[in-house]
């Protein structure tokens, strides 16, 4: 039995692994609540609405229970989501809380880490999030909801879409006082109530210990009507948040690219041929942009594609194109030059991407020049890095004569004498066998299919 490192906060139970199967231990103190969640119909309701991860009871003792939840294909964190992914996760959290209230329970926490995306649908994975509701109880997780969801969403809309990255440095959510300072007076009445007044109230009562001692928390009563009205108003506020003004250099990449139709079709045919040959079940599409080639992979029969991109607008666009479809493309924000690190206590609570799963194949199309010329990365470091993640690699080499590389070189000194196809092949051959190589028609680019050398195999 190996206990999950991040599963230490909740006295109701913990998550652990046994032979690579995830199990959840439920302590005696939570058994009555767990049973109520089932007997009241709340669990079935949430399952029928696709809002909670399903589980089966595998062991029942008088002082503990063990359940086996469905497997989450890829664990992702809020700082890797796009704006709409965070928005959908926030609305799901509020809807679950509302549902729970109509079954005599409420959510005792509102952590964004308790939501995971399965087939692009946000679902609650923490089955032990529910407590009994008593008329008049305020929502104890309200502050956490504002820090984990509302603050970053408002900051993305009112300040900059890149403000999401603040969740990386604040893994317990953006502190309300900080959000208030950064928002200044922006955000309208929603921000005024939930962020600015909220920050003032927290600051005032945190400093005034007397208030807590002299006036017990019992005196704070929020009627069920007002409680639900607050939740409904939060849902409306979040639904109305829109990123109208944002666009980036990548957003129209495929319409601004130097590809002719012939070159694009040729590239698509080569990628399709490679994929049919190696038949991977899972792919990481690095630099996926709007997911054009991720979709091609799904069409060919790849079961799951994680479409990584460093551009939050490209990830957003990809998610909006994907969320209403059944195809298994999971767009995520990921910067190869600054990937999600291990975070939390002892760097063990949130894992780096490579420690969460490994794909069968990496797709690195029109990426190498950005890494080598844009970021000065040597070929060998890239090859070594890719080889640690998967056994198969489909990679496109973009030579210096390509107009996209010329653009990159236009504003910098050409110190990249080693940047050519021969050096590329030598560097990658150290880690991979080059099994296929094809020129893309009507272009000076080349596609490679590579298989990792035996001594480096995962």
């Amino acid at each position: 039995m190996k206990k999950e490192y991040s599963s230490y906060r909740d006295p109701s139970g913990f998550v652990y692994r046994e032979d690579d199967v995830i199990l959840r231990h439920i302590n005696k103190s939570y058994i009555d609540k767990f049973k109520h969640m089932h007997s009241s119909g709340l669990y079935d309701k949430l399952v029928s609405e696709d809002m909670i991860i399903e589980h089966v009871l595998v062991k029942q003792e008088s002082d503990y229970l063990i359940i086996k939840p469905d497997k989450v294909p890829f664990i992702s964190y809020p700082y890797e989501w796009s704006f709409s992914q965070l928005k959908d996760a926030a609305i799901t959290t509020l809807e679950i809380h509302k549902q729970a209230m109509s079954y005599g329970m409420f959510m005792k926490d509102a952590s964004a880490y308790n939501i995971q995306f399965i087939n692009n649908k946000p679902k609650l994975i923490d089955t032990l999030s529910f407590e009994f509701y008593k008329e008049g109880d305020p929502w104890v997780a309200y502050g956490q909801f504002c820090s984990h969801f509302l603050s970053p969403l408002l900051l993305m809309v009112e300040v900059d879409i890149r403000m999401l990255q603040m969740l990386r440095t604040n893994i317990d959510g953006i502190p309300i006082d900080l959000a208030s300072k950064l928002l200044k007076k922006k955000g309208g009445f929603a921000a005024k109530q939930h962020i600015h007044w909220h920050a003032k109230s927290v600051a005032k009562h945190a400093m005034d210990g007397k208030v807590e001692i002299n006036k017990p928390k019992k005196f704070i009563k929020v009627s069920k009507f007002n409680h639900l009205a607050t939740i409904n108003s939060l849902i409306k506020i979040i639904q109305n948040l829109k990123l109208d003004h944002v666009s980036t250099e990548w957003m129209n990449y495929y319409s601004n690219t130097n590809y002719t139709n012939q070159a694009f079709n040729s590239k698509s045919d080569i990628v399709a041929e490679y994929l049919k040959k190696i038949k991977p079940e899972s792919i990481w599409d690095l630099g996926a942009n709007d997911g054009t080639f991720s979709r091609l992979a799904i069409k060919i029969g790849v079961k799951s594609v994680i479409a990584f991109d460093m551009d939050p607008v490209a990830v957003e666009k990809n998610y909006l194109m994907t969320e209403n479809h059944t195809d298994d493309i999971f767009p995520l924000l990921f910067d190869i030059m600054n990937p999600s690190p291990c975070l939390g206590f002892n760097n063990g609570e949130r894992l780096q991407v490579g420690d969460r799963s490994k794909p069968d194949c990496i797709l690195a199309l029109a990426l190498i020049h950005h890494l080598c010329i844009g970021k000065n990365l040597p070929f060998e470091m890239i090859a070594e890095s890719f080889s640690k993640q998967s056994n198969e690699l489909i990679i496109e080499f973009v030579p210096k004569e390509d107009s996209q590389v010329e653009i990159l070189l236009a504003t910098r000194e050409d110190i990249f004498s080693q940047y050519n196809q021969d050096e590329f092949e030598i560097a990658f051959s150290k880690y991979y066998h080059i099994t296929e190589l094809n020129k893309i028609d009507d272009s000076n680019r080349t596609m490679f299919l590579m298989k990792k050398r035996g001594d480096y195999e995962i």
Partner: protein
Amino acid sequence: MYLDPNFGSMIIQLIIGLIAGAGAYLMIARKKIVSFSFKKKVTKDSTSDNANEGKDHEKGI
């Protein structure tokens, strides 16, 4: 996950709850008034239609 209740967040919920609750109450009241006057209008219209129908019948139209 476990979260300690935060006093400042609870206090502000009281205030926000009152505002949101008042808003929701006004919305419900508005809906009731609109549906009541709409019903009244519909009843009035249908009554006058019926009355006209009767007259039409009387006229043999």
